[in-house]
């Protein structure tokens, strides 16, 4: 047996161990990314094989916490893919405005940059005060950063450029104050956001949503898990509700595709059909 085939067995065992011990289920994550991260953590942890990490993960909870922390924090920007936010402004906001109140679920919000981007957009469209945003992630370390809404000031240039390209109608600097090397977002942007722990792999429906955003999360899952999660979104949306995926993710080959019509294929905006 080749070394890489043995390693494949080790990774399967490690993922099983984590699931059985802690309930975190990475078994249907896209394997290539997860293998890459496990190999990196193997190097950092001083283990010579991946199977050496398994007893540590089972018996040392702090080692596991460190593992999950490093394992699963994707990095994102405010107004990542500005054209998507432009499309939301032009094509989604008018639909949301027909509701007396608006419930939005940002699934897999990570460190919160895109949830706050949506806050800003809703404010500028006079929709914020009747909106409730649920921003969820399974990673508590990421959620803690999200709740604080404080980011490195080195991001300001990118965020500002994105905001402008996204059709922002104000000045981005009005939404944060700079302190030392950090930019702290205004508290007003946090007022209607509830950050909560939710695991797309193991938790269930998040009811009666008008708009669900889940961008660049599905790419980390395999086909089976993608389908499960998309069904979860479909079940969590009201009829006429809107789903926004990452720009390289698609409903095209999923089992729920027929339940949705396309609002904008490039921005990956879909609307759940009435019946």
């Amino acid at each position, binding site marked *: 047996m080749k070394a890489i085939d043995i390693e494949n067995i080790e990774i399967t065992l490690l993922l099983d161990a984590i699931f059985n011990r802690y309930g975190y289920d990475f078994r249907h994550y*896209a394997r290539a990314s997860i293998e*890459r991260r496990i190999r990196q953590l193997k190097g950092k942890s001083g283990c010579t094989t991946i199977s050496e990490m398994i007893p540590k993960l089972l018996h040392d909870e702090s080692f596991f916490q460190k593992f999950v922390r490093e394992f699963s924090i994707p990095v994102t920007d405010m107004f990542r893919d500005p054209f998507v936010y432009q499309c939301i402004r032009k094509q989604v906001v008018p639909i949301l405005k027909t509701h007396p109140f608006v419930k939005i679920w940002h699934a897999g919000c990570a460190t919160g940059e895109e949830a706050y981007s949506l806050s800003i957009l809703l404010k500028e469209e006079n929709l914020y005060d009747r909106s409730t945003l649920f921003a969820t992630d399974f990673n508590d370390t990421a959620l803690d950063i999200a709740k604080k809404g404080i980011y490195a000031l080195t991001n300001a240039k990118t965020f500002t450029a994105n905001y402008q390209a996204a059709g922002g109608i104000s000045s981005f600097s009005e939404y944060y104050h700079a302190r030392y090397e950090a930019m702290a977002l205004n508290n007003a942007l946090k007022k209607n956001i509830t950050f909560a722990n939710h695991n797309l792999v193991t938790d269930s429906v998040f009811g009666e949503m008008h708009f669900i955003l889940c961008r660049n999360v*599905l*790419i980390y899952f395999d086909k089976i898990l993608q389908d499960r999660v998309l069904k979860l979104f479909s079940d969590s949306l009201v009829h006429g509700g809107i789903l926004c995926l990452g720009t390289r993710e*698609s409903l095209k*080959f999923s089992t729920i595709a027929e339940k949705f019509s396309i609002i904008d294929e490039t921005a990956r905006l879909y609307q759940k059909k009435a019946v």
Partner: protein
Amino acid sequence: MHSKQGHDMKKNGYKAIVMGVSAGGLAALSRLFSDLPEGFALPLIVVQHVHPTADRQIFDYFNSNCPLTVKEVEDKEKILAGYVYFAPPDYHLLVERDKTFSLSIDPRVTYSRPAIDVLFESAAYVWSSRLIGILLTGASSDGSRGMQLIKAHGGLTIAQDPATAEYPVMPQSAIDANAADKILSLDGIGKFLKTLSKTGYPDRQTKIQGQADFISDVET
């Protein structure tokens, strides 16, 4: 004559080519694509460093000058011969064991996303000795680690001759890391790919009896 559409990969010899290119890539890629023979039977998977918002109208131009279909990867897409695949801007591109692609927005590697190292490493784990890695012009050190890994798995690594590269840093860095089996000009790489196609893509492990081992014979 092969049509310009995807087909399943062949059974023996090399299975795929991964290619990394950065600054100066446009001219180098145009040249290589137009040199590819009709019916070239290996998928060609390319990471090119581009700006996150780069538009890919260049693909129209590539497609009119390349016998294979040039396209940007969709998540979970099946890898087929007959295609040149590009990593989408601002996403890492990885190869899965079941010969599909996956994408990630993991942090930049060597200041790059997509990173050449990420593609090369994941492809090395999937195709091991049945993989060819080609590193072209660029002003970065991305790709060196990936070339080392391809080589360690028994695959074949080719660096563009720095003397002929628009930006020599990237191929030179792989050569300095002792990660290049062959050092060839663009012209040489084009010829190599033609010969590879003519001889049925033999890798070093599956040499056909009586056939010259042209891989060892390629002038470096």
